[in-house]
């Protein structure tokens, strides 16, 4: 205690003072942001699942930040236009956007230069794993029987659909076929405009398998036209507790899936990142958000900032592998 000197006291006091000043400045900056409405760019059209997710996030975020959060749909170029708009916005925190899994796919096809690294990752909000659907009256009782049937069938005999050529569910199927030791086109891919037409064609008997997320398959399953054999994830989906995981039945398999997250343009200041991430975390935990997501059957998953960045890098790597295997990648 003898070391307690006057000079020491002054020094420490001034440090405290300076520190509090810094703190004051920081808190000042935090209290001023946001001082005007925030724009949340959604790269897909109004009425879709991504749009709905963006709107529910915006609605709750508005309450947390105390400023209007306007969802702006920037469509065109199969998602390129909207994703570009997010990356080129001024990094002031007043324009953020909803990234979708396509950002990890488009650059492999040479559609854009943008990658997940072209953004400041803020938070992962949603992840949906693919599940394997077959017709309700098909002979396959479980995923193992289907896998055996696929192996036994001549290449191209069985048909699958659920998205366009090179779309996310096509890649999920390719990944699964590879894990079975089969070439990517062993099951022929019938391109469709999304999961709903694919499920319709499944019910009409035009195709054999539809890999897509469970919420997308739900109406047809409920209508008794289709059944889901397995979800390609490590855990069951709490909304669909009867659908077993692939891991349970056939051992571990890491599949690609869809995800959505919030990000800003590159170079977002750290204090704004803090503020936004904290608010987004509250959104994620809010009753409105969880009720909405479970109502639609969407899976929720949280990861923030660097962790979200790593998640996107991993997704990017997986997509690249699957697309190269399927012969879809340009680079």
């Amino acid at each position: 205690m003898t070391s307690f000197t006057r000079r020491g006291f002054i020094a420490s006091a001034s440090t405290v003072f300076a520190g509090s000043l810094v703190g004051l400045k920081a808190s000042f900056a935090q209290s001023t942001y946001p001082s005007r409405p925030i724009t949340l760019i959604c790269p897909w059209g109004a009425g879709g699942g991504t749009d709905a997710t963006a709107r529910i996030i915006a609605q709750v975020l508005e309450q947390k930040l105390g400023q209007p959060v306007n969802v702006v749909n920037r469509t065109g170029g199969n998602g390129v236009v909207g994703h570009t708009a997010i990356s080129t916005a001024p990094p002031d925190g007043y324009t953020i956007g909803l990234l979708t899994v396509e950002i990890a796919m488009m650059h492999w096809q040479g559609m854009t230069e943008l990658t997940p690294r072209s953004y400041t990752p803020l938070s992962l909000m949603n992840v949906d794993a693919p599940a394997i659907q077959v017709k309700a009256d098909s002979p396959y009782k479980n995923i193992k029987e289907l896998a055996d049937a696929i192996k036994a069938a001549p290449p191209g005999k069985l048909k699958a659909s659920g998205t366009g050529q090179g779309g996310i569910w096509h890649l999920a199927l390719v990944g699964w076929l590879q894990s079975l030791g089969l070439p990517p086109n062993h099951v022929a891919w019938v391109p469709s405009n999304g999961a709903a037409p694919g499920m319709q064609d499944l019910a009409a008997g035009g195709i054999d398998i539809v890999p897509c997320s469970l919420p997308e398959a739900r109406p047809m399953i409920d209508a008794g036209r289709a059944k889901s054999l397995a979800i390609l994830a490590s855990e069951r989906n709490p909304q669909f507790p009867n659908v077993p995981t692939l891991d349970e039945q056939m051992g571990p398999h890491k599949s690609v899936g869809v995800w959505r997250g919030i990000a800003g343009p590159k170079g977002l200041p750290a204090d704004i990142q803090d503020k936004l991430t904290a608010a987004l975390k509250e959104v994620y935990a809010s009753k409105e958000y969880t009720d909405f997501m479970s109502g639609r059957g969407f899976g929720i998953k949280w990861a923030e900032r660097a962790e979200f960045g790593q998640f996107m890098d991993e997704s990017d790597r997986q997509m690249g592998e699957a697309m190269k295997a399927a012969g879809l990648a340009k680079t």
Partner: protein
Amino acid sequence: MRLSDRVTGSFIATLGALATYGGSRLPPVPGQDVGPSAFPMVIGAGLILCGLMIALGIGRSFEEEAEADLAAVEGPPQRAQPADPLAYRLRALLPPGLLLFYVYAADRLGFVPTTAIMIFVVAVAFGARLRVALPLAALAPIAIHLIFYKLLRVPLPPGLLPMPW
């Protein structure tokens, strides 16, 4: 801009040839027997065929018949005098040009000034007096902005003259 069937027909045939060529150079897609090149090539072939038929005047009789039917109801068709001076006919470029001007200027000038210019120019081109054109150019953009920005939440650029709402 009334061109002879020979010109438009040849143009369509050329476009068809280009589509066929462009289509043929598209890469095949693994797992698809009929790749992305087939459809453009079929369309291209159709365009070549149609273009040649038009250039040779096949099917012209239908057009004359249709015009005759219409004329029977409406009286002889009134067409723009072909003797119009070139400057007059060049005004055809005005609407597309103004739309491109909007694309270029909207983010810089903002919605209201840009569209005010557009409306003023077109109104004057139609021979409106300044007494009409100026108030129209001043008020119509504000009304349109109010409807689209406020009611329909279309994010129109504020630019130099942001609206108070």
